[in-house]
């Protein structure tokens, strides 16, 4: 019965709706809109890239394509997640990249109620099942990546 009801609802909404992928990286929890997610992968250790900044975890080979993997924790301005075991493959402006996370937690159908702003690249946060989540949409993620690249570039120039 539930399935049918949900099925009816999802038919009404857009293809992805407000569905969110919830995962854990470092000490924090994050939520990504499922629209930008391509695939979730179970890769323990991406290949290290020499000379790459700390927030680049490495590279992976995904169906013959070499894809960079970024440390989600560092990208979000928080602690690194060295024990990352899974990779969330996202597509931003036609570019695919991996986000190294500790653990994929769940897929939420319902839209998250934004409860406030946080001082970080995500900018928004929500309370979900008694825990705070940082919401990263495509724009926020892009901004975060750009910010990191700029910072890195300035550090290299100096």
């Amino acid at each position, binding site marked *: 019965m539930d399935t049918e009801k949900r099925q009816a609802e999802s038919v009404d909404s857009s293809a992805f709706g407000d569905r969110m992928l919830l995962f854990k990286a470092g000490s924090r929890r994050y939520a990504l809109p*499922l629209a930008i997610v391509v695939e979730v992968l179970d890769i323990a250790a991406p290949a290290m890239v020499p000379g790459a900044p700390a927030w680049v975890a490495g590279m992976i080979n995904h169906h013959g394509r070499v894809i960079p993997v970024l440390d989600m924790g560092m990208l979000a301005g928080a602690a690194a997640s060295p024990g990352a075991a899974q990779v969330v493959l996202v597509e931003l402006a036609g570019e695919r990249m991996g986000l190294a996370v500790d653990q994929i937690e769940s897929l939420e159908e319902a839209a998250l109620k934004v409860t406030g702003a946080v001082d970080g690249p995500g900018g928004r946060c929500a309370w979900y099942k008694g825990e705070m989540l940082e919401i990263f949409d495509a724009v926020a993620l892009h901004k975060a990546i750009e910010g990191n690249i700029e910072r890195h570039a300035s550090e290299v120039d100096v």
Partner: protein
Amino acid sequence: MKLQNKIIITILLAVAAPFAVFVLLPDSMSFAAVELTVGLVAFASALLAGLYARAHGRRLGRLVEAASRIGAGDLSTGRSQNLPASRRLLADEIDELNTTLSLVREAFRHMLQTVEEKTGQTERSSSSLTELAKRINVSAGNISQSMEEISRGAELQTELVEKTSTLVGEMARSIQRTSLSAEDAARSSREASQVAQSGGKMAGEAVDKMRGVFEGVERYSRRVYEFGEKTKEIGNIVKVITDVAQQTHLLAINATIEAARAGEAGRGFAVVAEEIRQLADNSSRSAERIGKIVEEVTAESEDAMRAVKESALRLSEGRDQLSYIIDSLKNIVATVTSGSDRVQIISRLAKEQIAGAEQTVKAIQNILRVTQKNATSTDSVSRAVDAQSDSLLDVTKLTAEIVAFAGVLEGEVRKFKYAESDGHGEETG
């Protein structure tokens, strides 16, 4: 030749000589010459006969003189009685008498000499005897004194022996008490030994039981360990299930994403994918619960293992302690047994000592009797010594008498004159 014959021969010769001359004279001679010659011969022969007779008279006179000297006690002079061989044929009664007189004188002198000698000896012996008697008397006095001392000593000895006897008796009583105590001790140690032995047996049984318990605990410990191992296996399996569930979960998410991408066509698949994801979540949660339970069980089984190990350790300690107790009890038994043996030896020795003490008491009583007898004997000896002293006085008296007697005898002998003159020596020589 007898004197009588000598006289006859002399007379005959004196008578015959003139006739012989007359006959023998040659016929040529004148008568006067013949008469003269015969007369001369007759005179000569008468003269010779007279001289011969006179010589015999002198011999007789000497004989008488000698006999009278002997009678007067003078035995000193006298001629040699050994006649030369030429004269032995012509010896007459005078010669024989002379010889006999010499023999008598010799016999007398010998007797007197002997008497004098013996008298001297008697005097000397008497004086020695007197001296000896004096000495004996002195010795007897000493003996008497010694006897008194011995008597006093014997009294003292008696006293001491009585004291010793009392002491030995007390000692014997004390030994008897010791013997009784030793017997008590032996009894007590025997009882202690029995108690210790039964204690040892009980401890041994306890050890056996404990060994059984220990083995049971070991078995139990092994089982708990095996259980823990199995639980770990379960944990491993649960981990595999969890992994599979997670992968399924990921696959379901990917399927959902793919379905979303497929748009309207993937909607049915999305539902299926969602179902799969939920199932995977459920499995994951169940596996997680199982994992938790397994963890708890593992923890509990580890606790149980620890408890079992501790119990085993305590049991082993207990066993060690029991072994120690058993050893100690054995030692106690050994010690008590040896102590008991020693006590028995002491008891036996004490009994022997009692016997010895009784014998000692007997011996002391014997000594006492002997001492008393000694005292009695000492009295007897004293009396005997006194009697001896008296006898010695008598002896001294008698000796004095003998000495007096010898003096008298010597005086009598001195009346004879026989030794001091040279003649005596010549006579004997």
